[in-house]
């Protein structure tokens, strides 16, 4: 017989889905942010003309729906290149690029927000380009970019729900499986939503905490 009541095992099943969501999000946001910093700094540094090819590629990742990217990447990497990658790996690769494309814009905006006169003052004291980047630009740009970056990280977390198309059973997919069995969509979606909230809340609060700590003036 089918069990139609919500059991502890179902919660464990959901928690496993939630863990997959967290895993995909953490990997993609970290990789995407590192790449985004590299791409964004490069775009700022070389100017719009030399950065045009990179900008074009990033625009592709920003403008095509994630669902399509996942399906196409899965087909391309698996069927065309015949790489034996797990769904999780493909999900992380695609979401990382998706995150990087947005992050590059945030990084560029953050760097541009640092007044050139401030950077000039740093260089006039004898700081090298790297020292200026590390000591002045990085901390100041981070303050400007943080709210957008938190938004991006939360967005990637929620968008990770789409990775079910490459056979990754994350939180929303787990919920759907339970809905099919238990026929309790509202209750299960509420539980699923609560899971999402519990995942995002610390990140949002952490962002708020940093913003508060950094506001000296």
């Amino acid at each position: 017989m089918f069990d139609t009541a919500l059991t502890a095992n179902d919660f464990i099943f959901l928690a496993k889905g939630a863990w997959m969501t967290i895993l995909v999000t953490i990997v993609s946001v970290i990789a995407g942010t590192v790449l985004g910093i590299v791409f964004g700094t490069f775009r700022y540094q070389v100017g719009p003309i030399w950065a045009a090819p990179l900008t074009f590629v990033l625009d592709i990742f920003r403008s095509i729906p994630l669902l399509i990217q996942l399906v196409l990447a899965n087909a391309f990497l698996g069927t065309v290149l015949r790489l034996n990658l797990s769904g999780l790996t493909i999900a992380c690769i695609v979401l990382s690029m998706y995150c990087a494309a947005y992050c590059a814009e945030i990084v560029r905006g953050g760097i541009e927000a640092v007044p050139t006169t401030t950077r000039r003052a740093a260089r006039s004291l004898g700081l090298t380009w790297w020292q200026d980047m590390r000591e002045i630009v990085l901390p100041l740009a981070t303050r400007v970019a943080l709210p957008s970056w938190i938004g991006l990280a939360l967005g990637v977390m929620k968008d990770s729900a789409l990775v079910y198309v490459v056979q990754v059973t994350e939180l929303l997919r787990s919920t759907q499986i339970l809905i099919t069995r238990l026929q309790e969509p509202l209750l299960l979606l509420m539980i699923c939503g609560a899971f999402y909230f519990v995942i995002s809340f610390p990140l949002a609060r952490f962002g708020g905490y940093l913003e508060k700590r950094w506001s000296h003036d």
Partner: protein
Amino acid sequence: MIEIENVRKSFGPLEVLKGIDLTVQNGEVLTVIGGSGSGKSTLLTCINGLEPIDSGRILIDGTEVHAKGTDLNKLRRKVGIVFQQWNAFPHLTVLENVTLAPRKVLGMARAQAEEIAVRQLNHVGLGDKLKTYPGRLSGGQQQRMAIARALAMSPRYMLFDEVTSALDPQLVGEVLDTLKMLAQEGMTMILVTHEMAFARDVSDRVAFFHQGVMAEIGPPAHIFGDPQHPETRKFLSSSRQ
């Protein structure tokens, strides 16, 4: 010694320095006056190597600033510059603003850098603001902090680019007093300023710039008392009004 030889510099089609020749001796205080667009601020940023030049050369203690092999970061340790906009590093305390370059550029230990910074900040009257963030300081205090920040590198030369122009009138005095003190201590300085009384007071020589040319240079008594160039006369009479 700072030697400027036939320096030319253009921004696009606009030539802002049209062959400047000037030598500043050690211990000398030179003020540069002139209307806006006369090229005086550009000259300072060229001396520091922040701007490239088109021709001519600038030598600091015999080292050519714009030569290919010159280590500008090293050269800049000798030449402090303070700008019109004080450009505080807003994420660092006053003390950290001043210790940053000695620690990162000179490789000083924190304790030693702080000792120097505290001395310089006391010198400019900010000894009680060490842990304050620049956002909480007045413009005059921020500008004095910028001066202490440059001095902490123990530069041999100091360049001041209209450092009082962006300040409220009641804050100008405290910054000028700081500059005067430095001049009396024998610091070699080039100051671009609009404060004529101050220029007359502290300078060994005054240079008048007009449309990218150094029209006249001489002791303050000559420039202010008996200017030879018609443009100098015109400029001085208009700035007295």
